[in-house]
């Protein structure tokens, strides 16, 4: 009884997580997050700025070709 309850709880939790990821993520704000915004705002000079130092990720498009990348 107890273990089947746990199974239902875990399944329910997983469904909530998948639902949030698939349905609610469309409404997510596309503005830069706190750290990125601070980085953008405090560009002291074009090439010495904070954000200008961010390099492209080595796996920008995932470790394999043509993977949809999170924005």
């Amino acid at each position: 009884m107890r273990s089947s309850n746990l199974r239902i709880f875990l399944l329910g939790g997983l469904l909530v997580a998948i639902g949030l990821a698939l349905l609610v993520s469309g409404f997510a704000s596309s503005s830069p997050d706190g750290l990125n915004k601070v980085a953008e705002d405090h560009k002291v000079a074009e090439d010495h700025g904070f954000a200008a130092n961010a390099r492209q990720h080595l796996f920008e498009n995932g470790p394999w070709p043509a993977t949809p990348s999170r924005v």
Partner: protein
Amino acid sequence: MHIPDGFINAPTSLAAGAVAAGGVGVSLRRAAETLQEKQAPLAGLVAAYIFAVQMLNFPVAAGTSGHLLGGALAAVLVGPWAGALCVSVVLLVQGLLFADGGLSALGLNIVNMALVTAWGGYAVFLLLRRALPATKTSVTVSAGVAAGISVVLASLAFVVEYAIGGNGGASVGTVFAAMVGVHTLIGIGEGIITALTVGVVLGVRPDLVYGAADLQTPLVLATNPGDTAREAS
């Protein structure tokens, strides 16, 4: 608040990598000692949930968003050790597969968003629990407030890293003011999401919440005199 490659110099990133590896190692050992069998699958669910909710950026001010970090939430649900591991796994997958957070900054990101939020958040949670009455509501409120503070702690950890090895031109004071300001706002969102989640789990399966283990009253077999006689007859 995933740090991309190039924000913090290589020696600082490397040092943070060593701290992160040590922290994950300690967490692995302590989680193996303390995690109850029924909580192991919950730790997996917590990691999946944090991964999903981290995608849901909420607006906090004009042109700025924030998302759940999840360390304090994980710590309240499965304990600070397993909780730090949950977020570390999420950060590892994001850094390797989703270009979210630089590879060279993985150590920095684990320190800020997994170790500082899970351990720091849980420490604040324990302090609040001590000050408040031993009720489910106190657990929910403590979790929410601790989660909010944990985001500010994580932003402070970034400021320390920037002060040690920042590559940008902005002064440490400027970065400090900007980071703490915006992450206080993001912390409010983190607190609300954490309190809602902990509240739901406390409502459905309070026995699974690590941070509420003291509220569990042991099952007492109440017997009336004569019961055994009736059973025997």
